[in-house]
């Protein structure tokens, strides 16, 4: 999943969130959103995949019983939104068993899938098991994008899966990852989503982690492309009204402002990787000097409330300048730790995406440079186990 979770909001007649922060660290709220990355196996080779580049070294998968226990413990802590993701979650034969347990426990379950393998038979079984929604992703590799745009084979496959989804009575939700190679076609992408009968369309501009970071210079759009894409999106919103809700997630490299990553480290989001490691975000394992517990050895409650890994960047006490004295620190929590490590080589630093970071010029330079990169200089690296082993040889 390339998206950050949709944040809960209080009803219009309600009170706002957030009391003032006392000197003592307040106990964190529950992990409302639990992301189960069931496997790193995947039939696709997306160049913007957020799975860790070294995924081939983590090919252990925890068992069905482990996942059932994770769901039970998560629900007991207060988790309510469950993401079933990967890799490609449909590759797990026990998916229906996991979904059924989620339903029994009262989770709202979301399957985040490429649709490859979602036959009518599988869809019927998942619906019967109680799956609440299927998010179908589009544009899984540059080759597929070209096919899709030229209305060839892939489009008809996705269209077929779209119909299967609708026939089961699920809301039709599409996620399209946007990057330089398809951003100019956003008008056509929105039209196709509408023609498929999508109720929600998420236009998720690539965030630069993992494989997207490796391919960054090919994927970063220019400012002009982004502005045009936003204009096109606005025009469609005005035209469609409530017929299709369109989310446009802008890339933070262009904003000059940081995102409140996962709504705050260890504040409402927990992900469990396929080998059972519990993480506060998809890529936290790349951070130096941190260890994360495994669900085979520790309970979710101990992990969430008491582990060093989850406590490390909670709140604002860990911040360095300029974050520590910044008026925005409670709003954005200094941005993203993984991005700070990747760009500034220091996970405690201000996220260089922030215009107040002393390294912000490096982000601006990356955006400028990407505009002039050619495919010959930096060929795209496709996500697969061979490349994974090559890029992460230790």
């Amino acid at each position: 999943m390339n998206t950050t979770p949709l944040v809960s909001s209080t009803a219009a007649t309600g009170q706002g969130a957030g009391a003032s922060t006392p000197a003592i660290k307040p106990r964190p709220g529950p992990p409302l959103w639990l992301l189960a990355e069931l496997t790193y196996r995947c039939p696709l080779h997306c160049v913007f995949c957020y799975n860790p580049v070294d995924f081939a070294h983590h090919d252990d998968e925890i068992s069905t019983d482990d996942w059932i226990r994770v769901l039970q413990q998560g629900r007991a802590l207060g988790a309510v939104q469950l993401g079933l993701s990967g890799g490609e979650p449909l590759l797990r034969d026990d998916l229906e068993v996991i979904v059924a347990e989620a339903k029994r426990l009262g989770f709202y379950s979301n399957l985040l899938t490429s649709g490859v393998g979602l036959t009518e038979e599988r869809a019927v079984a998942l619906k019967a098991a109680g799956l609440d929604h299927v998010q179908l992703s589009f544009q899984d590799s540059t080759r597929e994008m070209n096919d899709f745009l030229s209305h060839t084979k892939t489009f008809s496959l996705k269209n077929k899966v779209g119909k299967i989804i609708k026939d089961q009575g699920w809301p039709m939700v599409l996620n399209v990852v946007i990057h330089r190679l398809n951003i100019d076609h956003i008008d056509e992408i929105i039209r196709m989503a509408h023609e498929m009968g999508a109720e929600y369309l998420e236009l998720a501009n690539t965030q630069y982690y993992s494989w997207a970071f490796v391919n960054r210079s090919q994927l970063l759009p220019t400012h002009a492309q982004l502005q045009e894409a936003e204009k096109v999106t606005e025009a469609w919103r005005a035209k469609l009204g409530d017929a299709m809700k369109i989310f446009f997630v802008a890339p933070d490299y262009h904003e000059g402002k940081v995102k409140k990553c996962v709504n705050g480290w260890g504040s409402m989001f927990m992900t469990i990787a396929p080998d059972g490691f519990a993480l506060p975000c998809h890529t936290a394992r790349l951070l130096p000097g941190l260890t994360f517990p495994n669900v085979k050895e520790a309970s979710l409650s101990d992990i969430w409330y008491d582990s060093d890994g989850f406590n490390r960047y909670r709140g604002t006490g860990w911040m360095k300048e300029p974050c520590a004295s910044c008026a925005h620190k409670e709003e954005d929590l200094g941005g993203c730790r993984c991005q700070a490590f990747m760009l500034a080589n220091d996970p405690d630093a201000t996220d260089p995406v922030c215009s107040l970071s002393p390294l912000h010029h490096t982000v601006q330079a990356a955006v400028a440079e990407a505009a002039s990169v050619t495919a010959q200089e930096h060929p795209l690296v496709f996500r697969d186990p061979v490349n994974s082993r090559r890029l992460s040889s230790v």
Partner: protein
Amino acid sequence: MGTERCNCIEVRGRVLTALTLQSIPRVSPGFRLQYEPAQECHVLLYPEGMVKLNQTAGEILSRCDGQRSVNEVVAELEQAFSTTGLETDVMAFMTLAKEQLWLSWE
């Protein structure tokens, strides 16, 4: 638009059926209402999202079951909270909830 016949009002380009005491509201199909003990409130769940409801909103929406009329919901709330005169506030909230697409009625 036949406004005299169907008692419709236009809000931001959408035509909404005005709420009456006889209307029978229900939580819209795209949303699931449930009580969450860990958060001590009701929530509305939808694809990858959640709306946290305050107590009032939760009490009202949990009675919007597609069976009870607005009149009945108001009467129940007044009894449950030993008070009177809730009609205006309840109807105002329901109209707001309809604009958010959480509630629907014929």
